[in-house]
């Protein structure tokens, strides 16, 4: 019997929201506030949030900027004939300028979308469809977000050839691989800036230079990077960049795509309609969300350095305390070349999902942000050459602007306690301690 499988099916049951009574949240809240002083029950407590790569809380300053557009100022920003339209349009354009400013672009180069998923689709399919008669080869990596990989897969089924570059053990691509993959048919290179699972930062400067030299368009999915690390589309020779609102303390359901104007990058729209956003993205721009993204970018531009310093300090504290107190910890991805707010670790002989269940006081994820419902081992970890068991035992710690030192210390404390407990119950750990090489064991079933 495969122990692995059994425990996986058990953990998937334990991870169901019913166990936590999450679907009763509001009812419970109401009854809690109506209890009289006589009941000395311990109050329900919420877990800490260390999953900021999945989504971030909305910064109160962002909400404050959005509220007027959810209340008094509801005009359609595309209405040309009255003040309601003009005031909304002004707000949208100011937001566009804040986004552009954060990445060193011109406001005219920013297209509002519904998020990074749409931006990635628009960039990849849009460029491919516009130029499909001229060139039909696209280069990407094996560790991209699903929406990039699936867009490429779609184009592959429609006559494009795609190269999925491998990454080194560090999580970084080999630039020589990129150079040798480029041929005369290569239209587009799409490589993410910061990986959402392991946090590694690709050498965007160098990739941009290679693409420009070879006259190939360069798209980067910067959903996890914008507002976290300094980016400049000019100096980095980026032609298209995807941005997501809810990864930088803005609202969900809004994003942006930077599309270079000089030298011009042509993109075919995905949807037909009123021709808003210079015809690239029809549909009324949601003013309040656009204002939210603009405000988030404005704050990020001011706070980037401060946030980065603070997050680095917390990240170092987390990594040091865990590695000092727990043996056999593997940090996935090259720390030196990663965004410090994303720490991905594997604990030998401890299954990630079991640890997540044990660490129920902390909201963590076992890897991928958006598809964490699946218990498949991560394709990103496989791509960096992690052994299957380690790919199963990974946990991602997300540290953000609102994380506190006390939260890090609490997390470390619980991690030490539960990793130890789970290892004490693990026959594999016992074997490892006895010096038996686990890989040499013949398993009857995988």
């Amino acid at each position: 019997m495969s122990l692995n499988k059994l425990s996986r099916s058990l953990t998937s049951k334990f991870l169901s929201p019913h166990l936590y009574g999450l679907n009763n949240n509001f009812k419970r809240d109401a009854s809690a506030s109506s209890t009289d002083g006589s009941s000395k029950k311990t109050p329900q407590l919420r877990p800490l949030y260390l999953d900021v790569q999945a989504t971030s809380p909305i910064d109160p300053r962002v909400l404050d900027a959005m509220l007027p557009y959810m209340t008094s100022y509801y005009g359609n920003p595309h209405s040309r004939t009255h003040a309601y339209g003009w005031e909304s349009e002004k707000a949208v354009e100011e937001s566009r300028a804040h986004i552009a400013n954060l990445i060193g672009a011109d406001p005219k180069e920013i297209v509002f979308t519904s998020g990074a998923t749409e931006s990635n689709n628009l960039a990849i399919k849009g460029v491919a469809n516009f130029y499909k008669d001229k060139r039909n080869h696209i280069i990407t990596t094996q560790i991209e977000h699903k929406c990039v990989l699936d867009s490429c897969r779609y184009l592959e089924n429609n006559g494009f050839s795609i190269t999925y570059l491998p990454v080194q053990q560090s999580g970084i691509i080999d630039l020589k691989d990129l150079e040798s993959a480029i041929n005369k048919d290569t239209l587009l290179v799409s490589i993410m800036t910061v990986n959402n699972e392991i946090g590694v930062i690709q050498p965007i400067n160098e990739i941009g230079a290679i693409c420009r030299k070879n006259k190939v368009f360069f798209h980067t999915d910067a959903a996890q990077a914008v507002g976290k690390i300094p980016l400049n589309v000019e100096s980095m020779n980026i032609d298209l960049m995807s941005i997501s609102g809810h990864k930088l303390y803005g609202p969900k359901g809004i994003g942006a795509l930077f599309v270079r104007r000089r030298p011009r990058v042509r993109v075919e729209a995905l949807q037909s309609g009123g021709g808003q956003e210079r015809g690239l993205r029809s549909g009324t721009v949601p003013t309040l969300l656009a204002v939210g993204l603009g405000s988030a970018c404005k704050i990020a531009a001011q706070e980037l350095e401060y946030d980065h310093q603070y997050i680095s300090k917390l990240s170092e504290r987390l990594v040091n305390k865990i590695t000092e107190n727990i043996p056999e910890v593997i940090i996935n991805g090259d720390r030196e070349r990663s965004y410090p707010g994303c720490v991905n670790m594997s604990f030998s002989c401890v299954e990630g999902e079991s640890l997540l269940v044990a660490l129920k006081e902390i909201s963590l994820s076992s890897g991928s942000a958006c598809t964490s419902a699946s218990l498949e081992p991560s394709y990103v970890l496989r791509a960096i050459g992690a052994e299957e068991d380690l790919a199963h035992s990974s946990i991602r710690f997300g540290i953000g602007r609102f994380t506190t030192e006390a939260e890090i210390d609490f997390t470390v404390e619980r991690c030490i306690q539960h990793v130890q407990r789970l290892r004490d119950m693990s026959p594999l750990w016992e074997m490892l301690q006895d010096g038996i090489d686990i890989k040499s064991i013949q398993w009857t079933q995988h």
Partner: protein
Amino acid sequence: MSSHTPSKVRSLYKMLLRESTKFHNYNFKEYSLRKVRHDFRKNINCNDPSRVSQLIGEAESNLQMLRRQAVIQNFYKAEPLVIDTRKTNKDNGLESTFSSS
């Protein structure tokens, strides 16, 4: 620099801190306190009058923002965090230093 400025800055600083403590949300409260202190310390030696009045303007609009947000966010309180209980004493201490001053 006007002779009122130092006391004005001090009172703004205190009001910003006091308003920050009103967030029920642990993370927003901690961030706000940390950020107010940081910005204040960073600019404590600034004596360029136009910069000072700019900073005062920013602090005033931040104070308005905090006042609105502390109220609005507290309408939608979630349960306290698992580590919130540890913090209560310290926060109360902070509140009382201000209310007594």
